[in-house]
């Protein structure tokens, strides 16, 4: 009885782990992977099964994502958040530990190139979000046979979108918060003022 309960709980955790794989991969092999997991549980001790599953998960999830186009787009869109995260990391560490040479140098660089900083820190994540939204909608439109996996992945994708939207919301609204270093606020306000200049620059050069 106890063993059955542990096994079914273990299986539920494994089903959750499967959501980290690309959708197309799980659509092809998900049912069999679950069947294999049940067979493994019947044949080996639980600890041995989980040691195998965890090492397998760590190796196979990134590899399978690299083979799927939607995952590649999601990775690219995550990269668009990096300039903002870098600025925020410098700002936050400066607030906590006090100003340090590298932070001062970075701040000076940002202040010297407000227009570029604005484009990288605020505009780029917006593009990233739109890119991810487009990829997820394209993925959804390709979906023909709806099954329990499709719904599980739909829920996962909605969650990812909510998190991405929250991330982008934070990018947009943090400058109004007291905790945010003043240069971030300055970049935002000056960047907004300079938006027509950026557009003019783009029109002239591209």
């Amino acid at each position: 009885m106890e063993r059955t309960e542990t096994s079914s709980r273990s299986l539920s955790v494994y089903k959750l782990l499967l959501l980290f794989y690309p959708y197309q991969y799980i659509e092809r092999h998900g049912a069999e992977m679950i069947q294999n997991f049940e067979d493994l549980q019947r044949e080996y001790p639980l600890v041995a099964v989980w040691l195998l599953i965890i090492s397998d998960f760590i190796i196979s999830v990134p590899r399978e994502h690299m083979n799927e186009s939607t995952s590649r787009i999601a990775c690219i869109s995550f990269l668009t958040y990096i300039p903002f995260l870098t600025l925020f990391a410098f700002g936050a560490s400066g607030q906590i530990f006090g100003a340090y040479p590298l932070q001062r140098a970075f701040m000076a660089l940002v202040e010297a190139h407000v227009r570029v900083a604005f484009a990288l820190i605020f505009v780029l994540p917006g593009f990233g979000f739109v890119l991810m939204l487009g990829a997820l909608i394209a993925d959804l439109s390709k979906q023909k046979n709806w099954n329990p996996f499709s719904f599980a992945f739909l829920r996962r994708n909605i969650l990812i979108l909510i998190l991405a939207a929250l991330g982008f919301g934070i990018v947009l609204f943090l400058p109004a918060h007291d905790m945010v270093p003043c240069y971030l606020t300055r970049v935002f306000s000056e960047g907004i003022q300079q938006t027509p200049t950026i557009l003019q620059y783009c029109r002239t050069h591209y």
Partner: protein
Amino acid sequence: MPLTPAVFYILLALIEGQRHGYDIMRQVKLDSGGVVSMGPGTLYGSIDRMIKAGLVKESDTRDPRRIYYMLTALGTSAFEAEAKRLSQASQIARKRQLRAA
């Protein structure tokens, strides 16, 4: 081109006939003496790539719970070539060991 250990052991597991995923996993562990231990994620990823490369295909066996895989002609010849290469390498190694002794 030398095959990766995972691909080689999957081909080795299928050389005697068609098998389903779990059976391949078990056979690979057995054949490699426990050195190559494949989980479901790695196994099906490798099988997908091997199907794409034309080494393996899905068999016609009807089982609602399992998909059976079998070697293609290319898979069989790739396995034979790799087995021959490994056997030659092991013969050379043995000769050199004898000479050194």
